[in-house]
């Protein structure tokens, strides 16, 4: 029965063995010569050598200005001598075919003195097309820094380092992805971070067995403690300022080359609802906004399930004054509340999906057209009640208040089990779903640290920056969750000292 499976396994083993056999340099060059953009020519004259590079990856300026004049003018006996004369930094002389292959594929220029020699000189001439650093689009904030990560890892690390000029800021680099060979950086502040967290992250990264690593979200899915959970267990942010403040708190950041997002961990469910804006406004305002956001999330998840439950089972829960409004708006609808809700929720999801896939300008139009035209038409046609239309629109709006896109997606999805529960068992069904989700959240971990942290396990100290944000002077210690080696952020007595007179 399982023959096909066994066969497949043995064939993969064979290919793996094949790939382990080292190719020779000439084989490598031959395989590259199938591509039109690979340039390989012999330089005549005094120094007979072969120059090979991929012209789409290499900067021809370096070749023309720094390499060719030297090679044409001088007479060199060995490859080491060339290396000493060419004014380009970080050149390597090697005969390791794996290294040669990796470097040439990245745009290094390879120079062989004569075709027979095994040693080659690799000159870095990488030309990378990269996007300019632009304003954050997913986590936009009105005040505060307006820089967002781009797809180049070096630029991203630069954005972090310039905000954190510390020798302790450590960056470990790994190469992950069998085919893509993506550079992945683990960033942390040594002396603040708990080394166990770094160990966990690096170990899990090293264990990744996957051929392609296109984006950092791949990492967040593969590294997740529970990959079947709808909740993101890594905080996904495009703001360097947020990453920096997380690093200082003792968290670990993971960045991948080609991904404009950084992942920070360990994270908690509360943190996913905090925006960086919260730190740019006075603490009372930030607290109120956070509570509004929390309410919005609860409303967004529970409003339509409650509508279904109350209208189907618990008529006595409708306030007397609302009775007439709800009943008369429902009177013409041919569907039971559950169908009505599912149809409308799916419509909203369609609009959202369509809006996300279309170009920005058309996307906005779709939102307006969909919202106004379809909504009004559905009510006029008697397919949905206008009360429900308001509820669904509000809950959709409320789900947009989540600052992190990934958790927004989760919120979008988890209301459906609630709706089904509400239809089957009324309020009991809603409570059952709630118990199920809270149980799941309590069990969930982010790199081995509790995900539901300030609430369960209850750590009163960490509540200072969760649902409420106390002023900076009250947050003198780093969060307990991080188990940081240096828990003191600043001197509490000096931070809270009263300065009546400005001397």
């Amino acid at each position: 029965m399982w023959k096909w499976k066994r066969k497949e396994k043995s064939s993969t083993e064979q290919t793996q063995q094949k790939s382990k056999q080292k190719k020779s340099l000439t084989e490598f060059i031959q395989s590259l010569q199938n591509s039109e953009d690979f340039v390989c020519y012999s330089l005549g004259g005094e120094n007979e050598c072969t120059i090979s590079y991929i012209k789409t990856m290499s900067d021809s300026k370096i070749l023309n200005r720094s390499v060719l004049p030297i090679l044409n003018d001088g007479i060199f006996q060995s490859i080491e001598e060339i290396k000493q004369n060419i004014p380009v930094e970080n050149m390597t002389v090697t005969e390791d075919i794996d290294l040669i292959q990796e470097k040439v594929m990245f745009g290094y220029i390879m120079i062989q003195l004569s075709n027979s020699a095994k040693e080659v000189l690799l000159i870095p001439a990488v030309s990378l097309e990269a996007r300019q650093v632009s304003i954050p689009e997913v986590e936009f904030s009105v005040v505060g820094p307006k820089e967002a990560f781009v797809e180049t890892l070096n630029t991203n690390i630069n954005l972090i380092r310039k905000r954190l000029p510390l020798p302790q800021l450590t960056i470990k680099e790994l190469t992950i992805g069998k085919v893509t060979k993506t550079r992945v950086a683990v960033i942390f502040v040594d002396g603040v971070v708990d080394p166990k967290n770094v160990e966990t992250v690096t170990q899990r990264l090293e264990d990744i067995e996957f051929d392609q690593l296109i984006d950092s979200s791949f990492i967040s899915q593969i590294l997740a403690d529970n990959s079947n959970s709808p909740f993101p267990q890594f905080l996904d942010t495009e703001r360097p300022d947020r990453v920096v403040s997380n690093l200082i708190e003792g968290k670990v950041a993971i960045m991948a080359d080609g991904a404009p997002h950084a992942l920070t961990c360990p994270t908690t469910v509360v943190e996913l609802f905090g925006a960086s804006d919260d730190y740019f406004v006075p603490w009372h305002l930030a607290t109120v906004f956070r509570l509004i956001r929390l309410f919005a999330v609860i409303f967004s998840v529970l409003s339509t399930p409650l509508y279904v439950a109350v209208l189907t089972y618990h008529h006595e829960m409708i306030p007397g004054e609302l009775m007439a409004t709800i009943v008369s708006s429902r009177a013409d609808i041919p569907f039971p509340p559950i169908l009505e809700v599912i149809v409308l929720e799916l419509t909203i999801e369609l609009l959202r999906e369509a809006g996300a896939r279309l170009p920005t300008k058309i996307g906005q139009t779709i939102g307006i057209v969909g919202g106004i035209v379809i909504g009004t038409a559905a009510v006029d046609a008697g397919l949905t009640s206008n009360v429900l239309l308001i509820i669904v629109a509000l809950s959709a709006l409320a789900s947009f208040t989540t600052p992190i896109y990934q958790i927004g997606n989760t919120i979008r999805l988890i209301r459906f089990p609630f709706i089904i529960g509400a239809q089957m068992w009324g309020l009991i069904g809603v409570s059952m779903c709630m118990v199920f989700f809270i149980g799941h959240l309590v069990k969930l971990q982010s790199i081995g640290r509790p995900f539901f942290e300030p609430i369960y396990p209850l750590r009163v100290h960490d509540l200072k920056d969760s649902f409420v944000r106390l002023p900076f002077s009250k947050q003198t210690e780093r969060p307990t969750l991080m188990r940081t080696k240096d828990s003191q952020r600043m001197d509490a007595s000096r931070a809270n000292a009263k300065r009546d007179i400005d001397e």
Partner: protein
Amino acid sequence: MKAKIFLVSLIAVSLLSGCIDHSSVEENAIIQMAGYDKGENKRIRGTVSIPQYEGSGEGSPATEVYLTASADGVKEVEEEIQKQSSKPISIGKLSVTLYSMELAEEGISDIIDILSRDPRISRNMFLGIVDGDTKDVIESKPSSSQESTSSRHLKGLIDTNTQYNFPKTNLHRFLYSYYAEGMDPFLPIIIPKDSTVELDGLAFFKGGAVVGTIPESKSFPFRMLKENFKRGMQKINFEGGTIMLDNIGSSVNYEMKGTVDDPEFDIKIDLKAEVNEMVGINREATPALAKEIEKASVDFFEKNADELIQMFKEKEIDPLGLGNFAKTRKRNFDLTKWKDNYSDLKVNVKINVEITEYGIFS
């Protein structure tokens, strides 16, 4: 394996128990008011009002449908009414239940029992005694200026007036005093008057039967004895004219002295009031006059309070809950003994009236 068993049982439970019959709110006949009269041959005649909501129209119901049925018991009335209704009956939104005086005097213990058992019924529901036929009250078309349906009208009527002269009442309070030891319930009396209905006093229960009533004019003194309240008006005769006392804060305090066998109660009432209207009194408003009015009011209230307490003793009822008060404060409380001694109970009512304002003169 565990997960599999869990999944299978979850699916089984959801599929098997998801089959109960349910209908959306607009497919139900939502009873908002019910009334019970004495029917023929010791039967109960129930009348219900069901608002009819117009589709795609304005929010308020335009009409009400009244259904009447006779049966031996309350649940049977429900069943009989179901036979007349095209939609399933839903009693969760019942907001007013009325009993005719005739029925209430015979005792409504059986009906009260049903009310206390049904979890769908709101504890905020209002109960009332109708001096006359509840059917007439329920089916009375309210005058055009007021609420659109009679259930809303009656609910609003009781709700509003229990903020003024009438003591607070609802199903919860009624059941509490019905089941409490040393406490008896009371309900407001509603009478049909011309084209509308009116609150007309209080009916006092002994067990499940009405044994005494007081007119609307005495409900202010009763409320003063029963609970703290902040509104309401009382007319007081003074030197041939009348004065309207406008209550702005009345607080009552019970104190128990003596032993369980020989208790004595002090009821202290502090009333703050304004005087805004004096009819037929040709005197200038001065602090001296205010003092005189205060004294007259104290006399008036003390007289009324004594009369009320005397009446309670005669009827052997305890709407103030003095027995309950004693029970919660003294050990060895014996209900039968208390009842035997109730008629000799010493209750001293001390009233202090303070007139804080008597208006602005020019």
